[in-house]
């Protein structure tokens, strides 16, 4: 099943939640909508599900106009951030709900429903909880039940709204891997919303980065990390050093100091220079494009994070290998291994 969104617009009062969004999702893909809060990602997901209506634009599911149908007819599995389980029903009845409310003409008999629910509970590895009530489950278990419930109706597409947002860090990591392997198993076209870049990069085949109601970049996890298409994407994904620079006649200046960096194809004018923190190589003074004094050093897992006061007056944070000796007060040279310059 494919999903296609064309020029979608949605405003809440004077706030533009979606500002002309185009997106195409191929059959069997697992796509992440990634962006800060207020970027419109949840609104986009809800419109595809039929829980919200756009002010303009089209939504096609498998080539059919989805906006002509309500949520009930769209046959879309939706998983909510806060699970939205029916608390007066057992786990079993929650999963069975979608099968029990089918029109009488197509409704399965009780034995078939039972078998199907059992199969889904096995799929999410929680068949031993079938008689419990949602309030007796942990957050991770509730979300897996919510997923089983959404899958019960054999949805054409599966939409997940911050599915792991309410869970603690360890459970999140487990569920991420689990979701990826589950998707591999059932292979239903899926979109999930997240504000957690690590989650998006680890789980999705393709990442859609959104900001202020617009799509900034669509690409594989490698693409959006290695070749960000805009200053926003570079700043949002991965940790970056960001410096305001001037580009004039192929020369990059920080303040009034020319930097020994090629401007590449960057347009002249005020620009932003982005370097990944770990791409700043530390050398002796005078060895690189920048020079600065070490102000603060902390060990941070496999790296040490140092605060450097550049001679231009800006203070930046870099990640250096642990074996590199950095002492507070030292003057060091810094050379970016890789960098990008964006206008603006």
């Amino acid at each position: 099943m494919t999903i296609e969104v064309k020029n979608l617009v949605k405003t809440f009062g004077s706030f533009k939640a979606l500002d002309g969004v185009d997106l195409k999702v191929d059959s069997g893909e697992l796509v992440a909508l990634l962006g800060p809060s207020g970027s419109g990602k949840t609104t986009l997901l809800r419109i595809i599900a039929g829980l919200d209506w756009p002010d303009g634009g089209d939504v096609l599911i498998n080539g059919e106009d989805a906006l002509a149908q309500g949520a009930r007819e769209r046959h879309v599995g939706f998983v909510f951030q806060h699970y939205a389980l029916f608390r007066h029903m057992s786990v079993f009845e929650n999963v069975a709900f979608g099968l029990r409310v089918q029109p009488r003409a197509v409704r399965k008999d009780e034995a078939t429903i039972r078998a199907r629910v059992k199969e889904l509970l096995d799929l999410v590895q929680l068949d031993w909880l079938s008689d419990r009530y949602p309030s007796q489950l942990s957050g991770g278990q509730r979300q897996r039940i919510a997923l089983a419930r959404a899958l019960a109706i054999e949805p054409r597409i599966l939409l997940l709204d911050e599915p792991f947002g309410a869970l603690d860090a360890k459970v999140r990591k487990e569920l991420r891997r689990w979701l990826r392997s589950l998707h591999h198993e059932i292979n239903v076209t899926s979109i999930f919303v997240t504000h957690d870049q690590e989650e998006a990069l680890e789980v999705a085949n393709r990442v859609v980065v959104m900001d202020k109601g617009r799509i900034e970049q669509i690409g594989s996890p490698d693409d959006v990390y290695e070749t960000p298409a805009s200053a926003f994407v570079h700043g949002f994904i991965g940790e970056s050093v960001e410096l305001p620079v001037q580009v004039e006649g192929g020369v990059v200046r920080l303040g009034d100091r020319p930097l020994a960096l090629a401007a590449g194809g960057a347009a002249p004018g005020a620009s932003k220079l982005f370097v990944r923190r770990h791409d700043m190589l530390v050398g002796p003074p005078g060895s690189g494009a920048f020079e600065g004094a070490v102000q603060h050093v902390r060990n941070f897992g496999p790296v040490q994070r140092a605060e450097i006061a550049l001679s231009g007056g800006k203070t930046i944070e870099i990640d250096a290998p642990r074996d590199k000796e950095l002492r507070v007060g030292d003057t060091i040279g810094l050379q970016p291994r890789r960098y990008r310059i964006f206008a603006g």
Partner: protein
Amino acid sequence: MGLTLSWLSVIILIPLAGLFLKSLELSPEQFWNILTSRRTLNALRVSFGLAFAAACVNLVMGSVIVWALVRYRFPGRRLFDAIVDVPFALPTAVAGVALTALFAEKGWLGAPLAALGVKVAFTPVGIFVAMIFIGIPFVVRTVQPVLQDLDPEIEEAAGSLGASRWQTITRVILPSLAPALLTGLALAFARAVGEYGSVIFIAGNLPNVSEIAPLLIVIRLSEFRYADATAIAVVMLVVSFVIIFAVNRLQRWAQSRIPAR
């Protein structure tokens, strides 16, 4: 602990025990004869029957009011929310006088109703109206917090799973509210059974027709037939106790299934 028990005993248990002891002055036959006399039976029937009918009306209308107050934002919502408490706060005699004036044959509502041939004041219908009036806040105030706590997302979830609006209401919303609805029903019923002040003004108080049990107790007391009065009182007490016990069980059942999140 000690304070709680002694306070409860002084305030509640000792008076109740006194009531039972007083009724023991009657022989079982006398007790039975008082209860099965036509006037007593009719008074009990009027009290319990109309109270139950009023509680049912309150259950339906209370639910509608709660739905509007919780799910919609409209001008004056806070004012309406406050108005719900008026029957709680108003002295019952004041309510009785106001309702009587309103529904009397010359009253604002009484006159047009009389033209239609419907007589409210000084009939059992009047009792019914008064009981609805005093019972409505019980349903609203018990159901309101539970509905507020009910995530609107569960309705969206039901919809996306293919449930119609009707199925969503009957299979998801009402069952989630059921314990609170039953509790509200029982409280409104218990209140209406015991209501005296607002009812006696509008009731007309015709023996066997529009005479409520609490009034009969007062009449017996004024006739110095204390034992008769306590016999009727004991019956009301036992029934009320059963209702409160049922409410408690309902609440416990609700809490065991749906603990606070």
